[in-house]
């Protein structure tokens, strides 16, 4: 796994040698790579018994706007703030 891949997840291991349960990332990848099972089946994408689940097109307020904004680590004037993107 390259640094580029880690960047994809916006993750860095704080200590690259850190391991828990003795199984570090390379062991997990080895497990994935070492076993190459065969199957002739199509991918099963959905496990629930449901199909065609839709809802009526009706608008209503959640009445939770203030609560949601109050969870943001940084917010002002009703906007959630982040460092400048451009």
């Amino acid at each position, binding site marked *: 796994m390259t640094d580029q891949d880690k960047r994809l997840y916006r993750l860095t291991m704080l200590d690259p040698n850190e391991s828990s349960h003795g199984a570090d990332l390379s062991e997990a990848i080895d497990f994935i790579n070492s076993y190459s099972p065969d199957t002739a089946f199509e991918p099963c994408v*959905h496990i629930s018994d449901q199909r065609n689940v839709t809802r009526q097109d009706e608008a209503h307020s959640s009445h939770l706007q203030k609560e*949601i904004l109050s969870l943001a680590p940084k917010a002002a004037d009703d906007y*959630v703030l982040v460092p400048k*993107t*451009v």
Partner: protein
Amino acid sequence: MNYSEKYEMTVGLETHIELKTQSKIFCGCSTKFGDAPNTNICPVCTGMPGTLPTLNRAALDYAILAGLATNCKIASLTKFDRKNYFYPDLPKAYQISQYDMPLCTDGYIDVETDGEISRIGIERIHLEEDAGKLVHEKDCTGIDYNRCGVPLIEVVSRPDIKSAEQARGYLQKLRCIMLYLGISDCKMNEGSLRCDVNISVRKKGSTALGERCEIKNMNSFSFIVKAIQYEFDRQCELYERGGTVLPETRRYDQATGRTELMRTKEQANDYRYFPEPDIPPLEISIEHVSRLKEGLPILPDERKSSYIALGIKSSSAEMIASSKYISDYFQAVIERCSDCEGVANLLTGEVFRMLQGDDDEIRLSPDQLICIAQMANEGIINRSTEKKLVSLLWGTDTDPRKYVTDNSLVQINDIDTLKGICEKAIMQSQKAVSDLRGGKLTAYKAILGKAMGLSHGNANPVLLDQCMKDLLGTDDI
């Protein structure tokens, strides 16, 4: 430098259209545009932990309508997928979209450019959710989640577009169809219609396609045309110099009219698509599609054909049909009168001239317009007066017939009266008459113009001309 002798462009357009459902695609928040920031939000569309999406059936139906109106095949089985990437306007860090089983495929729309009709293929139409809006301040960026979760359809054309004007024509037609369906406002200035351009260039006669670039950030049809023209030149110039065009995403700068590099292909995201497990798949029955098809309104091409069948010329029919509003207005005209050609001409001439911008209303009722056209047909007023009446009566509910009589605008058809006017005009145009006798044929116009002026513009122009020629004894002007 005109490169179009040597090179040709291949253009494909990806258009995002906001659907005007009441609620968002995956939650019950309102989709209303322009509300105060972060007022139309809930735990689902802000990606709170533990929340799940629920699909709005109107969004699904609107998307199917869009597919039907563009001659697409509607999938019998479809699903959603997650498109994963990080950006502040994307609360879940993934967008619920459709990847390999889009709702609609293999459609087309017919576009008229310079009198020629081309069929532009539509590769696919799929459903997805919109992201939030970013507001940039001096030292930070603010996020408004109101728009997050508004339903979008993405319409991907085949790379069948061959010119900037054709691109404009395609977008206008697409927009027109969506307005006819009533599923979107398609206002570029409000963001309910957005378009990215994919363009490559190759030497004429070559079969292989050149490397293509994606252009973003154009918020009007004319900027899209300009961007395509600029990019075409840029790529041609590169090839002329022996350089290579790299597969890039470029940003159109409205101020400079140029495209600039945004990111290279290597920098592009791997979206790690996988099927959305929280939304069960959708089996779309033939019956459901048939029901929607039956409910389709008459679409622009059909309306245009029906106008042509009424005797209206093709270019006028096209102009009227290309706007749902004008077309609806014209439907009201057709219901009230049998000979609509005159009204069609007024609509596509004077009325169009009076309208300011796409949202302006026609400030004359169908009855008023019919009346004006009828008076002209009956010879009560001349064509010049007919045109003037449009602007004179604009915004009033005055009866045109009454106005004409009250303001002495009735056309003068009486030969004796016309003769008298001509004689007067001749008397007042001695110089022009002698110029005419001297062989300056263009002087006739001045004399005729004088006569028309003396009649306060009411003279029947054909009869006036005949009278004048009789009096002057000059038939061969």
